[in-house]
């Protein structure tokens, strides 16, 4: 599907595909934390963003993800970024500024926007890599594995995992269906791209209602089908595929933790390399 914001799993047999889903989930979360921590100075921040970007590109190369896929995921964000820039310019009134005519533009405003932008790109890139190299089912299993301790305080982890995995399972189906309904309504003269607001609203309604109707229909059918086959949400379940940590997972985990620890240390101590150089 064209509109899918995150990567569709592609069945390449790469190192990243082979890694355990639990490890990859943890890795993504830690990378995101790194994306959000501040280092000693702005220059340091952007140095490490550059480093992360290089890592992202290497991972993407390994996983056969094209840059174009990432660009496509970023595309819808332009509008938001411009909006954010305007807000920032109007609101942020600290730090040094330069003037366009009489109007002050503060460097802080520009940097604020840039930070958000870079962070968003990095986050998107990491989730793209995760979803392109991990089957949705494995991700759910991983999530369930992490949530497992919560069963001790009576959280229905298994049910949550089942709901998530069903939802994930039906995303492509729903997208396919939306595509079909769009085509069917386009055949009846609906124009989804042009038209006045009123026409646009009608166009959307002609798409949403059939989608809802069929989604509800589908979910009741699915519930019946599961019940008929004896699914019991509270029953004890065994698993067909059992996940094992392999040597590569342990090694990768070691590198990940070393990297994360290093980053954290640099951040907490607020070390600024550039201060030494200059």
């Amino acid at each position, binding site marked *: 599907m064209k509109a899918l914001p995150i990567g569709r799993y592609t069945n390449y047999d790469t190192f990243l595909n082979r890694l355990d889903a639990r490890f990859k989930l943890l890795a993504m979360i830690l990378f995101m934390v790194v994306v959000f921590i501040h280092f000693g100075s702005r220059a340091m921040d952007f140095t490490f963003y550059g480093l992360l970007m290089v890592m992202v590109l290497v991972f993407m190369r390994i996983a056969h993800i094209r840059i174009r896929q990432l660009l496509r995921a970023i595309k819808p964000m332009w509008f938001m970024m411009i909006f954010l820039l305007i807000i920032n310019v109007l609101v942020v009134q600290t730090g040094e500024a330069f003037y366009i005519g009489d109007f002050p533009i503060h460097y802080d405003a520009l940097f604020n926007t840039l930070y958000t932008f870079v962070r968003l790109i990095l986050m998107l890139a990491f989730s793209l890599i995760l979803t392109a190299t991990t089957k949705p089912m494995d991700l759910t299993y991983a999530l369930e594995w992490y949530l497992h301790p919560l069963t001790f305080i009576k959280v229905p982890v298994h049910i949550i995992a089942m709901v998530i995995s069903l939802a994930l399972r039906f995303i492509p189906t729903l997208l396919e269906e939306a595509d079909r*309904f769009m085509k069917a309504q386009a*055949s009846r003269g609906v124009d989804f791209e042009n038209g006045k607001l009123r026409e646009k609203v009608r166009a959307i309604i002609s798409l949403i209602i*059939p989608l809802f*109707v069929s989604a509800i229909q589908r979910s009741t059918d699915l519930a019946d089908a599961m019940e008929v086959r004896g699914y019991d949400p509270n029953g004890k379940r065994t698993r067909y595929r059992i996940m094992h940590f392999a040597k590569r997972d342990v090694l990768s985990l070691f590198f990940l933790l070393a990297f994360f620890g290093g980053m954290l240390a640099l951040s907490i101590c607020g070390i600024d390399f550039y201060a030494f150089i200059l």
Partner: protein
Amino acid sequence: MPLMFDHVYYTYDASSPLPSKAIEDIHFTLNEPFFCGIIGQTGSGKSTLVQQINALLRPTQGKVIVGEFVVDSSKKKMKEIKSLRKYAGLVFQFAEYQLFEETVLKDVSFGPKNFKENEEVAVEKAKKALKKVGIPEEYFSKSPFELSGGEKRRVAIAGLLAMEPQILILDEPTAGLDPKGAQEILALFYDLYQNGTSILLITHDMNVVLKYCTSVMVLHQGKLLGMYSPLDVFYQKELLSEAEIDAPDLICLVEQMEKKGFSLNRQNIRDIESFVAEIKKMKGEVK
């Protein structure tokens, strides 16, 4: 006016890591009015082919000429796309899911209204179309979601009839209808054809092809094996086995009878009635 495919190719997800070729090098010309069948196995590219006609999908290569419209691979938005979609109306497989309005009548008049008909004319056209597909008047104010599957299908078909397209494309319109209902709907299409509308019918029911179609396209794995007369195609054993299609029972019967020494005029046999007539003629000759 002609419907022309000029070496049309279509690949799904062409720029993705997993492209899939759906149709390849489709080339044919049909002169209006036609009642053309499209047959082929599941996945042979029938639905993909017809979606090129009203530009729901644009060819990856080649072009389609529909009346005065040209659909080609250019990324540009077609200005006349709306007129094209009014000229060539497409009823989808499982069309019943496209219903969404509060009432049956509103839903059917949705199409004409989109093509800038005013309210009254649209409602008039909708009523006419609903009558044609055999939906009684007391259903007009019902919600489409209260209808049975077959009734929904009829309403959906009416939704396109009300647009009065010049070419009506139908993707398995009778799948899942009861035999009598299916016959009625097909008779309606034939009636439209005789009044000058061109019909392009995707179907898995070979009896329908034999009975109604003036020509038939055979697709196999995205390639057009050829355009034939339905009276010829079912006697070509090799072609049928290549396309993995079974001939209608009636054809098998005729062939068996010919083997046993009966001489029948194949060109006259399109359905049970014409078969019986042919047998009667033969009896007359024997006497």
